[in-house]
């Protein structure tokens, strides 16, 4: 079979497809979006009749996958790291029910926060849910792990997580595909009670999950993804997790040239025997891991840091941010960290709203009304419109998590802030803004929710959003009074009219209101055939 040039994300997708996947469930989020997009564009996935539509949010996606697993077929759930916070309820409890068909949960972490609000490390979630998890070192492993992860999920009857990071997710490499496996037939679980987490069943299931931990460790010991490199100089051993292995090898050129004994670690829980062999042989150990000092902290123990373990907690590597060949070389003592000289002619070039973006005109109108409002505040949300926090707009005062604009505006209004305004995109609204708006309707809170409806999920590149064309009906259905569900069109020629509508709802109405600013994203509009 011909080699394929694939992003890490695409390699996971192709791997899952070739592993007999029946459905992919996801909500867009950088750096995970391209997994679903690849399947949506794949003629092979179409021919195989794969489910490959976006879900309303990651929690829905996780539970939809669990339903497919219940029916005996293989499912994959994909999300960015913070999406796993949203999906956590389903994820943790799917470990308690157990799976039937295999479930692969792909969490794409974003160390250095290229496109995220934190750099949380999903390995903690894997540990928390007590399931096996995989961390590919390269695109070939990403491809291979989709299949071995689904196999492992079915063998162990729990979801298996694959953790990728930005640098792998968004880097292309050539991979060798394997022959495809057929999809599994629909087949229902024999024990009907297993998925009913009443306390009596949950206790039994949980005991079984606890008892399985030894099997998970044994699987890690036997995994071809975890291996020891002998090395000739035992003064410093290295634990290299996931893609950190590549930076280590980059420093020496090849495995044979690497003088350090190395544990290449890509399958968890920790392979204790392999790790023990490394620790026993080496005087000191350097832990290279992308994200949090997850393994390093365990090696230091509760009273650490100890002198024999080095990493992010001891200053040998930066505590935050992603790894690269230079910081790894510096940690190995192979040269000083390269710091580029200051260039007086260089200016920062931050991202910005596109020329002609509808959000620009929404913000212009909103800024004018808020300037009349005294001490009012605008609570923002997650999307392109978060860029409204930067000059020249400086229009929003918060950006926390999906949907938090509406709930924070409500809380601030409860505290007595007038006016309290939320700004949220259409896709973010259907992801997590609907339920807090229902709270606000229940109490008739004095907030105005501006839904910037560009008919797509813009930030991640223009994916379909499940609420498209239904935003007013949703607001009316939640009980927002019809006279306070207003629609404006954010164009320069409508500025005066838009200011008038916003002023009426924000300043002139003491209760819940919604202003929908509707105009299609110019990026998706440009891509449409004329």
């Amino acid at each position, binding site marked *: 079979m011909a*080699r*394929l*040039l694939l*992003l890490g994300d695409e390699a996971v997708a192709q791997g899952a497809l070739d592993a007999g996947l029946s459905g992919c469930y996801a909500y867009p989020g*950088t*750096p995970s*979006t*391209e997994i679903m997009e690849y399947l949506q564009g794949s003629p092979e996935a179409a021919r195989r009749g794969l489910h490959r539509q976006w879900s309303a949010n990651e929690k829905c996606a996780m539970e939809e996958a669990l339903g497919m697993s219940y029916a005996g077929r293989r499912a994959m759930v994909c999300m960015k790291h913070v999406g796993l916070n949203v999906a956590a309820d389903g994820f943790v409890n799917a470990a308690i029910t157990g799976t039937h068909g295999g479930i692969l949960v792909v969490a794409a972490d974003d160390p250095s926060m*290229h*496109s995220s609000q934190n750099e949380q490390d999903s390995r903690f979630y894997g540990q928390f849910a007590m399931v096996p998890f995989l961390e590919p070192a390269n695109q070939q492993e990403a491809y291979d792990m989709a299949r071995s992860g689904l196999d492992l999920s079915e063998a162990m009857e729990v979801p298996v997580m694959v953790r990728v990071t930005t*640098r*792998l997710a*968004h*880097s*292309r*490499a*050539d991979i060798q595909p394997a022959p495809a496996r057929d999809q599994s037939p629909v087949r229902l679980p024999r024990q009907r009670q297993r998925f009913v987490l009443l306390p009596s069943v949950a206790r039994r299931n949980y005991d079984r999950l606890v008892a399985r931990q030894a099997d998970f460790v044994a699987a890690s010991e036997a995994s071809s993804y975890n291996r020891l490199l002998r090395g000739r100089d035992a003064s410093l051993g290295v634990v290299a997790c996931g*893609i950190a*292995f*590549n*930076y280590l*090898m*980059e420093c020496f050129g*090849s495995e044979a040239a690497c003088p350090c004994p190395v544990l290449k670690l890509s399958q968890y829980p920790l392979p204790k025997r392999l790790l023990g062999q490394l620790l026993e042989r080496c005087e000191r150990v350097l832990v290279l891991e992308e994200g949090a000092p997850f393994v390093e902290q365990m090696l230091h123990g509760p009273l650490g840091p100890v002198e024999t373990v080095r990493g992010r907690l001891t200053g040998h590597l930066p505590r935050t941010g992603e790894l*690269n*060949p*230079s910081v790894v*070389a510096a940690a190995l003592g192979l040269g000083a960290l*390269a710091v*580029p*000289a200051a*260039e007086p*002619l*260089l*200016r*920062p*070039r*931050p*991202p*910005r*709203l*596109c020329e002609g973006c509808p959000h620009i005109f929404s913000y212009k109108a909103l800024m004018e009304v808020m300037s009349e409002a005294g001490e009012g505040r605008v609570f923002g949300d997650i999307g*392109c419109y978060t*860029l409204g926090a930067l000059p020249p707009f400086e229009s929003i005062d918060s950006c926390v998590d999906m949907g938090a604009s509406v709930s924070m505006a409500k809380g601030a209004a409860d505290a007595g802030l007038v006016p309290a305004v939320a700004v949220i995109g259409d896709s973010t609204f259907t992801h997590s803004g609907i339920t807090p708006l229902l709270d606000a309707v229940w109490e008739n809170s004095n907030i105005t929710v501006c839904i910037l409806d560009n008919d797509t999920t813009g*930030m*991640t*590149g223009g994916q379909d959003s499940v609420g498209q064309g239904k935003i007013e009906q949703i607001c009316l259905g939640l009980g927002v009074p019809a006279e306070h569900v207003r629609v404006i069109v954010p164009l320069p020629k409508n500025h005066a009219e838009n200011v008038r509508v916003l002023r009426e709802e924000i300043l002139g109405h003491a209760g819940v209101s919604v202003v929908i600013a509707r105009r299609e994203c110019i990026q998706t509009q440009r891509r449409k055939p004329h």
Partner: protein
Amino acid sequence: MRNDIILAGVGGQGILTIATIVGQTAVRRGLRVKQSEVHGMAQRGGAVVAHLRVASETIYSDLIAPGSADVVLAVEPMEALRQAHNLRPGGVLLANTEPVKNIPDYPDEQALLDHLRDTPRHLVMDAGAMAKAAGSAKAMNMVMLGALSPCLDLPEESLTETIREAFQRKGEDVVAANLRAFAAGRAAAVAVL
């Protein structure tokens, strides 16, 4: 063999087209490839960079270490400056002169270009004008790819074959304009490098 190339520009300028054509060509010739890209928020008019590595042996890191790139190719002059520290001694700087002034404090253009031309091995050219002369202003990236081509261990015909395939569905005229743009960039590079 190994070619380590850093590509730079402003989100939306399409540096990934250049990277993908090189990458596809290399895979077809049985070479190993790693190509690290920027997706997400930075694509909205911000500074973007891609790392492209082609080699006959296993490539480990997805990122090129600072001070070790064989070529820095920038489709915008200030972004060329931002990435110039990645060049190895004797490395080649390829830069388009046309600025993208989407910030309020863009530096003095002439000073910027003079600074770029201080690099010992450089080609600083108006790739947009060359593309226009070749028949398509949009083919600026192909002028830059042409300029990159003599620095790569890939045959010219293999690259032009991939270009032909990449633009085929847009019609023969578009293919021809892009091939002319490629040839113009290549000729400019061969003359000075």
